[in-house]
């Protein structure tokens, strides 16, 4: 029993790192421009399709797909901002919510029309396992977890040490002051969309070797990412990491101990409990 729990905990941490990577982009865009991108997980889904087709048609290994998929999705994010989000930055909240909600359905049913309802996955026979703290974990999952950690490290360094990163933070904190200081806020917003969508795509690339894709996987991932951001505390990069880890652990442990069918129910219950007790999240310190 203890061994089972330990196994669940370890694979929960690995899974949590992947959730954190999905949540990272959501948190970044939310933090920088106060827009919750409801279509966030649809980009993850599309990136998984892109990686799958590169593998199925071109025999490109998912890891090698990164230099192609991630820049393309950076561009997609940038484009989404320029074509759609730019127009609603200062619109009423309802318009913002509806705009990305509509986008969610366009992308989801676009994928449905293009790829059909079938489930696809990359299957690589003979993949090894890596022992993590005494538990054998599939190599692809370990890779995904490490990639997630690296992405968090790089983004944190970017925000802290580069001039552009600091400008991005300034634009996030106060749009007017940033504008007055000559920071191109509009470009910072576009950059946050590019980066946010690119990290979602990165998660997609490393998810596909062990997670099958279909047009509707976005729902679960959006909710998990949102719960991660809320749980960890929003407006900060490490919040997504802590939140993602908690969600991954919670899902795996309770899924193992109680019932795998209702694991999302537990996650949701934790999320609601968090809203009641500590709406600013684990790491957050400011009121709302």
């Amino acid at each position, binding site marked *: 029993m203890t061994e089972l729990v330990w196994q669940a905990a370890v694979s929960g941490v690995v899974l949590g790192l992947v959730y954190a990577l999905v949540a990272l982009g959501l948190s970044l865009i939310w933090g920088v421009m106060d827009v*919750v991108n409801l279509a966030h997980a649809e980009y993850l889904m599309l990136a998984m399709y892109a990686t799958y087709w590169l593998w199925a048609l071109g025999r490109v290994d998912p890891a090698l797909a990164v230099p192609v998929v991630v820049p393309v999705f950076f561009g997609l994010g940038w484009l989404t901002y320029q074509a759609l989000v730019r127009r609603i930055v200062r619109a009423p909240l*309802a318009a913002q919510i509806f705009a990305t909600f509509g986008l969610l*359905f366009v992308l989801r049913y676009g994928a449905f029309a293009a790829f059909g309802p079938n489930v696809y996955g990359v299957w690589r026979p003979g993949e090894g396992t890596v022992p993590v703290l005494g538990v054998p974990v599939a190599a692809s999952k370990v890779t995904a977890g490490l990639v997630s950690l690296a992405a968090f490290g790089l983004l944190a360094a970017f925000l802290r040490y580069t001039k552009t990163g600091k400008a991005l933070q300034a634009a996030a904190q106060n749009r007017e002051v940033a504008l007055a200081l000559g920071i191109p806020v509009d470009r910072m917003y576009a950059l946050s969309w590019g980066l946010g969508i690119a990290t979602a795509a990165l998660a997609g690339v490393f998810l596909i070797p062990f997670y099958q894709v279909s047009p509707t996987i976005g729902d679960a991932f959006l909710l998990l990412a949102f719960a991660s951001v809320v749980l960890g505390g929003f407006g900060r990069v490490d919040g997504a990491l802590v939140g993602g880890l908690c969600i991954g652990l919670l899902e795996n442990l309770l899924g193992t101990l109680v019932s795998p069918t209702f694991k*999302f129910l537990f996650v*949701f219950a934790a999320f*609601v409990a968090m809203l009641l007790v500590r709406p600013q999240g684990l790491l957050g310190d400011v009121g709302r």
Partner: protein
Amino acid sequence: MNRPRTLAALVLGGLVLLPAAVQDSFFLNAMVHVFLFGAAAQAWNLVGGYAGQISFGHAAFFGIGAYTTAWLLSRHGLSPWFGIWVGAAVAAAVSLAVGYPTFRLRRHFFALATLALAEIARISFLNWEAVGAAIGLYLPLEYRNRLAYLMWDSKPPYYWTALGVLALATGVVWGVDRHRAGRYLRAVEQDEDAAEMLGIPTRRWKLFAMGLSAALTAVAGAVYALYVLYIDPYNVMASRISLLVVVVALIGGRGTVWGPVLGAPFVVLLNEYTRAWLGGRGTGADFILFGLAVVLVSLYQPRGLIGLLASPSPRPLPAVVGAGRDPQDVPPAGAGGPPVLQVRGMEKAFGGVRAVRGVGLEVRRGEVLGLVGPNGAGKSTLFDCLTGFVRPDAGQAAVDGIHVVGLPPHRVAWAGLARTFQNVRVFPDLSVWDNLLCGTEHRGEGLWEATLREVPPALQEEAGRLLRSFNLWDHRHRPAGELSYGQQKLLSLAMAVLRRPRVVLLDEPAAGVNPVLVDEIGRLVRALNASGLTFVVIEHNMEFVMRICHRVAFMAEGRVVTVGRPDEVRRDPRVLELYYGR
């Protein structure tokens, strides 16, 4: 006035008689869908349109209604006449459980919580053996063709039942829209803090709209189950139902009575016919279209089809008898009544900044007390502490003996404290008249009472008189957002004083206003004071303060330095040094 009503009656009559003329089964089937999804969209409109709380999970309520009715009938033989209301009650209870924790937070949370709810509900029902899990529930056919079970083997009776459900939902929304409730929900949508400060219990109203909305959606779901005779999580809890409901309301025009009614045939018929043409569940092309429509509506025509068809027609107002009292120029008389507002030991720190440090203050009944001091002295923070927007670290405040610290803003308002904000806060899309009527007394006002009744005529007359004396009467039909900044300040003052609170806190009433209007505001404050109202006024315009205040309290660095007659305070050397740096 009667024309829209006649038109509505004619259309309704035509719809009732339609099955006599058209027997095409595909068409009748499509119309049943139009009515039921129209009803669900109308229900969504209450919470997503009027109250502005956007739900993406109405499929859960639709499904709960369908499942409850179907389960009670198939497993226990209980009539849907009973089951429908049980389903409505269950759906309302679930909606409140989701709304209660999330309505405290920004609206994203509610939107995502409802999305999560729908997902959780679908997964739970898919795995719940008692309700058939993935196999679903069949409705027993032996009950058909009996009115007691609302099941038939031909389409027209369903057509009429569904039409009845749409009429019910529209009637409820019409009732809300016509009476106080609609005004309050719109106020909540536009500026929750301002609504709270007027004494509107915003969270209770949001929960009310949500519960009512979920219950009506469940009724539509129940009738849907009786119509299709077989339900499973895929046909009554799918996320496309949530989408369809949102799209109908959004395209028709959310926050209006007729928007969802107009949107339903447009969207649902399109959906039904494309599905028929493309065969089966289609390729999802219709949903790409709906998604695009939602994006486009949010970008270009937030008011939907209704916005394209009709410009807002102002409602006729009751004629008001008697001219407004002209406020006389009353010089400030020495007001030495008993204390009405007592503040003791108020403390508030933001991180390391101690904005308010041990403030004590006594406001006497019938006086105008000026609160002056340099920027950052803690004046507005003190107001925030008193009115429940900021929780003070320590201290007491009582209005006529009622403690207000720790109460939410609407309870503070109920205790008799009114307030205006430094940056004017009116409800921009509500008419001036509706804005003003949001300022009536809300203490003890029942939710159903406010839904079923308008403000009593006597109170409306009083409001009319107030509006005249504020020179805003001629603007009463205009949206408040169209007024000048100064006029908006006047309006917010009128809204604050309409219910004749015990103490009115004014935060910089003269700032950013032209000199003529500054005089006007000063005159109004004095006249209202002469009629018995007590004021505390934060203001930087010293001339204004000198003219209207009986006493002045000087604040600096979070403390009250001195309190006294205006001329005394102005000459106080500490004030000169702290304020003017001399």
